[in-house]
């Protein structure tokens, strides 16, 4: 049985055409999957369904074989914008998922410091979010999503607003953090190169359906050299072709 299993999932906002239709998708433990598609193709909605923020009208979504009914500590979610609380220091922002449950223990505070250190933000723990750059804020949001050690991480175009170089740095950080924790990731993006660089599998979505399933068999770990390899370019053009075919 798969780690995350979606069967014939459908979802409709009342009064609108279906946003998500007949989705079948499985993710195995520790895999990194990307959902790509044009704006409005339903990828964010599918992610919210997987998070339990929305409930499917048809079909079922199961995590470890159990239906996803509500968000829980099993899941980490990273939004399009960092959504940090500007009145809390960086450290308290990272600890937010903990402090909503109970007063953070010394061990948990240490863990938060460690996460920040791994993301190169050790010296910013006492700062406020407004004092950080956009890339640093995205890192804090990532640390916040990882503090409870979720087994599934759902990400909704988290790096879309960053410049190209910062984005590549964050992609490397993300891959490294997830590999060391064996975190399963479902990552939504509209950037083809980002999808191919990060993913083991890419799902191309259009009009609420998954229209193509592309396995990315490029070796790991991926490095800057990967981005300029022939295999990388071939996969990018394959994804691109899949998106074009849909548009035609």
């Amino acid at each position, binding site marked *: 049985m798969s780690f995350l299993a979606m069967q014939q999932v459908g979802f409709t906002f009342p009064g609108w055409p279906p946003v998500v239709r007949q989705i079948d998708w499985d993710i195995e433990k520790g895999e990194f999957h990307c959902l790509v598609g044009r704006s409005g193709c339903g990828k964010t909605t599918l992610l919210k369904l997987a*998070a339990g923020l929305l409930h499917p009208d048809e079909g079922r979504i199961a995590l470890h074989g159990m239906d996803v009914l509500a968000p829980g500590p099993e899941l980490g*979610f990273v939004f399009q914008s960092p959504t940090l609380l500007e009145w809390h220091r960086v450290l308290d922002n990272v600890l937010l998922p903990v402090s*909503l449950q109970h007063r953070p223990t010394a061990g948990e505070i240490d863990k938060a410091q460690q996460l920040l250190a791994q993301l190169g933000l050790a010296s910013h723990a006492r700062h*406020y979010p407004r004092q950080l750059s956009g890339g640093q804020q995205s890192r804090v949001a990532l640390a916040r999503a990882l503090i409870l050690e979720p087994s599934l991480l759902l990400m909704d175009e988290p790096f879309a607003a960053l410049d190209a170089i910062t984005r590549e740095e964050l992609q490397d950080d993300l891959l490294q953090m997830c590999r060391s924790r064996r975190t399963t990731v479902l990552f939504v993006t509209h950037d083809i190169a980002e999808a191919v660089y990060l993913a083991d599998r890419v799902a191309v979505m259009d009009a609420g359906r998954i229209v193509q399933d592309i396995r990315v068999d490029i070796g790991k770990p991926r490095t800057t050299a990967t981005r300029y390899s022939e295999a990388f370019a071939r996969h990018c053009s394959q994804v691109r072709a899949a998106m074009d075919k849909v548009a035609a």
Partner: protein
Amino acid sequence: MNTKLLRMRVGSLVLLALLLLAWEWAARGFGLSALVLPAPSVIFKSLWNGLASGYFWPHVRSTGSELLLGLAIGCIVGFASGVIMSESAFLRALLMPYVVVSQVIPKLALMPLFIVWFGFGMTSTVVITALICFFPLMENTLTSLQQVEPQRLELFRMLGATRRQTLLRLKLPAGLPGILAGLRVAVVLALVGAVVGEFIGANRGLGALVIASQGMMDTPLMFAVLVLIAVLGMLVYQATLALEKWLLLPYTKVS
């Protein structure tokens, strides 16, 4: 930047001195009666006499306490109503028409009624001040709490926050800048409420003193009291600004 600011401040003071000098010169030169427009020197003498003899202090204390008491009551009730109405759509729909009606009536027109209800003196003035402060606080609290970014609400849902936690740890801190802007408006209105309330409802306080000086045809005294009212207003307003700046420090700090 700092020297520029300093130069502006000095400029303002110089302008003030020039205006006062021109006023003094005009009052003396045209031989205007002190009943119409007293010279600044005459006003200052009246102000000094009142302060030195202790004549002004009970009045300042009275207006000050009415102002603070009315402000505190109005703001607490306004804030609490704003929170309750933002949390409950039912209460919002139920109460909003009454709140609007209560605000459309000019509150000072209610002062004679309050004198009948609460008597001549401090209570009536406090009630009217509180009523005036209530609205900006309620309105700003209600709006600020409803304008929380949807993604942040989703984040709190994602993290399994209770309704209480979402209110206390997300909505209130996120709405704080807007709520404090309401407080700033309330402070200015509170002084108007207290002074004008005293015009008709009290025999003590700076407002009552303005009316008394009119009755005594003592225009220099009236001007002296107006100066006191302006100083009192500036003090309360600056204190509010300082409080706001301090509370919003994490929100504004950028370096």
